[in-house]
């Protein structure tokens, strides 16, 4: 039998695994689409190549010192590799189960397909990522300060962590039967009879919900891995928790910073057909998020004080952060309301403010506040058709 439109580059044995076959065909099509625009594909390929070479050359010294440190604390490397593998496989299992449950091929006799192939697709992400880490470790031997023995030792540590963590993550993420769980574990239960009245509370909660959604364990696992690696050897349990807490607060503040432009755009797409004014739109959206920013910044300042930073320094950093938050939020909301793109302007303004602050203390803050007020004014005075 022949299937003329299935690309020949796809191996024949994949025909026995239709779900994977469908994914493979989609990938081949995606690449073909990209190749139809040679300028874009060449640009991407050259950029990736240059970035890789640059990273290898520029980071070789730093990486070799990290490797020396990692070999000193081999248990941490195994633990970090295991945690990463566990979170990866846990997420992967959920992705596979969701894909199987929602697939357009659900009514076909998929169940008869080979279990060995299924197993291979299951462990593929872990294998290729472990292989990438090992390859990187071997590539570092190009730098004379890293020996092949050290490289192999690190590779073995990573592989051991992955071999232990992967199956654990897979096993831990097994799902209860459909009738034992609610429709979504992120859907809160209703505590009382909800009242329905005009209110902007939902808008105020939206960016916070978005930041929490981005912070789900499956999304934040890389950050967790990085945070664990920043705990110095010999740190007590309280110290370690303190460091992890600081990372969590920092992550939340950054997520909230990005959430407002993201949510603002979505909210405007939804509300564009209503006669909502700029202030009626912007204030509910930012009021609770800004309160969280202030509380989070105060907490971060407290941490900085606990780490022996001067009060003036921690206050200064806190003020700069809040000024940048105001700047980015004001530009993004005002320009979204005025139906203009804001990403480039927000990036340039932030860079300019930081540059000015580096030259003259207080100048960047003043510029941020000025630009923020200017954009709020532009948003408020924008006449809607």
């Amino acid at each position: 039998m022949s299937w003329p439109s299935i690309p020949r580059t796809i191996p024949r044995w994949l025909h026995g695994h239709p779900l994977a076959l469908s994914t493979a065909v989609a990938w081949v099509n995606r690449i073909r689409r990209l190749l139809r625009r040679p300028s874009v594909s060449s640009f991407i390929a050259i950029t990736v190549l240059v970035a890789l070479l640059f990273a290898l050359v520029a980071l070789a010294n730093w990486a070799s010192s990290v490797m020396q440190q990692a070999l000193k604390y081999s248990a941490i490397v195994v633990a970090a590799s295991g945690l990463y593998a566990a979170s990866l496989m846990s997420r992967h299992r959920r992705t596979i189960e969701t894909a199987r449950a929602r697939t357009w091929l659900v009514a076909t006799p998929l169940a008869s397909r080979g279990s060995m192939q299924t197993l291979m697709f299951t462990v593929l992400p872990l294998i290729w990522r472990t292989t990438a880490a090992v390859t990187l470790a071997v590539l570092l031997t190009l730098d004379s300060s890293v020996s092949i023995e050290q490289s192999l030792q690190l590779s073995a540590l990573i592989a051991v962590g992955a071999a232990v963590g992967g199956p654990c993550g897979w096993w831990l993420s097994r799902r209860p039967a459909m009738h034992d769980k609610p429709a979504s574990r992120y859907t809160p239960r209703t505590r009382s009879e909800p009242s329905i009245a005009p209110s902007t509370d939902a808008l105020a909660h939206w960016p916070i919900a978005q930041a929490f959604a981005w912070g789900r364990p499956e999304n934040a696992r890389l950050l967790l891995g990085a945070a664990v690696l920043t705990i110095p050897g010999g740190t007590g349990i309280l110290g370690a928790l303190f460091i992890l807490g600081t990372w969590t607060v920092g992550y939340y503040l950054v997520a909230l910073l990005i959430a407002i432009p993201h949510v603002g755009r979505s909210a405007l797409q939804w509300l564009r057909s209503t006669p909502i004014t700029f202030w009626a739109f912007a204030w509910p959206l930012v009021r609770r998020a800004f309160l969280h920013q202030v509380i989070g910044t105060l907490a971060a300042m407290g941490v900085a004080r606990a780490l022996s930073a001067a009060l003036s320094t921690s206050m200064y950093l806190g003020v700069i952060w809040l000024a940048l938050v105001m700047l980015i939020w004001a530009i993004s909301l005002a320009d979204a309301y005025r139906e203009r793109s804001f990403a480039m302007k927000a990036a340039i303004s932030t860079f300019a403010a930081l540059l000015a602050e580096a030259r003259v203390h207080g100048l960047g803050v003043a510029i941020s506040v000025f630009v923020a007020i200017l954009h709020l004014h532009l948003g408020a005075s924008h006449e809607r058709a």
Partner: protein
Amino acid sequence: MNVLDVESVHARFGAHEVLRGVSLQVARGEWSCLLGPNGVGKSTLLHCIVGRLDPASGEIRISGIRISGESACAAKRRLGYACSPEQLPGLLTGRQCLEVYAIAKDLERIDEDVLALAEELRFAPFMDAFVDTYSLGTRQKLCVLLGLLGNPDLIVLDEAFNGLDPRSSLTLKRHLRERLSADRCGVLLATHSLDIVEHHADAAALLLDGVVAKRWTVDELERLKLLGEHALERAIAEVPNLD
């Protein structure tokens, strides 16, 4: 012989029991419609029938073969299901979708009558375009074509006429009627369109609060037609809620 037997099926999400002992049969050559307000469990029942969800209890058989457990594969060989348009893979072309689906159903080739129907539905010009460029109606046509592949005993359609233009809709109804006349299959269609029930269905069931609250045979549907316009609509409205 029935192509579909649903016996006392219960399904729940957490504490919420969506299906509370649903029983339903579709005979070969019969076009059966599943009616009911939004959120009563029509789609959940269809998901149980096609094997997407495992019911908490009860049994579902397609041409006498259980859809769950070890016989699932054999049952699915006799099943045709038009998935929702949003489930189609956007990065595949229509032709690739048909081919992958045929592979998944262990077919030697794409059925001639499905290709002929594609021509009649004026889907052929879109065959080599990517699914993510399709309109809703074009996607719907592809879903139906996929559901008809492999000459299935039971064809399950969930709001399959939504988004179809009148001409395509009529073409599809005629095609299904031809298959039914030849006793090739039975059709189960979940729909809100009472027009289809009145003019094409051989049986109908109304799902309310997770149970089949009312059934109409072909004779009863014929009698309703004699009562004038909107008779079925009034009959549905008169069925009391079970809560």
